[in-house]
């Protein structure tokens, strides 16, 4: 649905040319939540601003729904922008307007008649959970509420694409989660394509279907969120994965475990998007004559199911343990016994 070919943006300064985005290729499917992650200076902010041409590309093409954004005239670009919502890190609301009037602003721009505008605004205020706050001014709202207004405003003209420029970076963790939930909700309800950029792996993990890792103006790694989590190839990706799965002391804990539990079997279970056997551990101990002892691990939930690693200790008859592990292997969970220390 969105296809980007050879996209580049060069900022010319006095001493040098800065290639903020460098020959970037990407395809984003309709209805998916596509995340771009990178450290500051990786070019992700420039990338998202190129999509609605807040920055004009130096080269390459952007096609959204078979419309070539990169070659539109000024007038056509304005119309195309009305089909794309955008939300910002600092919300960028007009302080002089109430919540309702802020949400009505893009409708005014699109020339929607007053009656219709009012109706649509009421709908949106409810959609983003701001019922009753319609006549407040932005200064009277919390950060999370302001971003809700930003989202309602971005959705006003029923866009097909929503661009999120570090939309949760200025919010505390709890508010971040509630905004992310809202985005997932909107994505499901309206079938909207969401492109978001962030430096927080947490955001990617929680809501994205696919992720692209950006470094030096290029996408260095791209794929389903789970695949990238499970098999990060690039160093920078590994660092991001460690952000949420961070486990620097695993090596030392493994050797300790070996000493502590000489009997039975110690196994590592890799969850890679398990959905059907969410209660796997209790299932195993119920079905087989084994005691399962969770020693160490971390499981996290992604859009595609549970992801993470558990180190468990199984106690019981040797054959029973084998049968239990075979059962586990039949699910999507990967099993690793005979751990190397």
């Amino acid at each position, binding site marked *: 649905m969105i296809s980007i070919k050879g996209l580049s943006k060069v900022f010319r300064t006095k001493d040098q040319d800065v290639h903020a985005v460098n020959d970037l290729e990407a395809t984003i499917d309709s209805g998916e939540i596509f995340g771009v992650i990178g450290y500051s200076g990786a070019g992700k902010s420039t990338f998202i601003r190129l999509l609605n041409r807040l920055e004009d590309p130096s080269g390459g093409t952007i096609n959204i729904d078979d419309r070539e954004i990169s070659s539109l005239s000024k007038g056509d670009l*304005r119309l195309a922008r009305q089909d794309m919502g955008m939300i910002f890190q600092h919300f*960028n609301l007009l302080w002089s307007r109430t919540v309702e009037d802020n949400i009505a602003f893009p409708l005014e721009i699109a020339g929607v008649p007053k009656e219709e505008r009012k109706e649509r605004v009421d709908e949106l205020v409810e959609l983003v959970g701001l019922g009753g706050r319609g006549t407040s001014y932005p200064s009277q709202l919390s950060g999370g509420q302001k971003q809700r207004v930003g989202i309602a405003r971005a959705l006003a003209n029923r866009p097909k694409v929503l661009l999120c420029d570090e939309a949760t970076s200025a919010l505390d963790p709890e508010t971040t989660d509630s905004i992310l939930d809202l985005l997932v909700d909107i994505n499901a309800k309206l079938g909207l394509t969401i492109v978001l950029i962030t430096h927080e792996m947490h955001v990617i993990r929680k809501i994205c279907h696919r992720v692209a890792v950006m470094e030096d103006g290029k996408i260095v790694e791209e794929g389903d969120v789970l695949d990238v989590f499970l098999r990060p190839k690039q160093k920078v990706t590994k660092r991001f994965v460690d952000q949420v799965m961070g486990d620097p002391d695993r090596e030392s804990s493994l050797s300790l475990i070996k000493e502590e539990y000489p009997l039975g079997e110690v196994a590592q279970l890799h969850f890679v998007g398990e959905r059907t056997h969410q209660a796997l551990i209790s299932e195993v101990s119920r079905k087989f004559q084994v005691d399962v002892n969770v020693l160490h691990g971390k499981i996290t939930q992604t859009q595609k199911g549970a992801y993470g690693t558990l180190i468990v200790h199984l106690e019981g008859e040797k054959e029973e343990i084998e049968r239990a592990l075979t059962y586990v292997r039949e699910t999507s969970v990967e099993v690793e016994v005979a751990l190397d220390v």
Partner: protein
Amino acid sequence: MFEQLFPNVQVDDMITATNETLFMTFFSVLGTFIFGLLLGLLLYLTGPGGIWQNKIANWITATFVNVFRAIPFIILILLLFPFTDFLVGTIRGPSAALPALIIGGAPFYARLVEIALKEVDKGVIEAAKAMGAKYRTIIFKVLLPESTPALISGLTVTAIALISYTAVAGVIGAGGLGDFAYFYGFQRNSFDVVFVCTVLIVIIVFVFQFIGDFASRKLDKR
């Protein structure tokens, strides 16, 4: 009591002079607001990073503003005599003071307008662009409403400067309290007249300041 303290003060004359001052102030503030706003917008929009960024247009506007701001007001009045004569048909009286007052005040206000516009959050302008807003929409629905409190407090400062300009204009026969204080007070050695004129001007200034502060505060929803 009043007549003993201020033997030379004629209430009728004072009222006439006050009305003339108010007339000059009101219309010069109005004219300054319109032309200053236009000049200020032009400065901002053609300036670096503005939506009509244009070096030449910006240079011309800035030069015009700087030159007219540099000329002392008393000299500006004299300089504009032919222009005033052509425009108003006379060079005396309150109306004749208006062209000089506006041409003196507008460039001053233009700079304050430019500063006010520069204070508008760039992110909000960008958000409007991302929504597909036209330049006209950005100017009238984003830039001006978002800078209203600063535009009003700037206008208050300008209005007070204009009140003192009207007193200067009095010297060339524009009428008003400045004129009155000079010819009927100072030249006739009637210092009670000078004193009463001063008090009246101070009151007018205070009233303008109060209205300006009040409006600016009321409109600021930040």
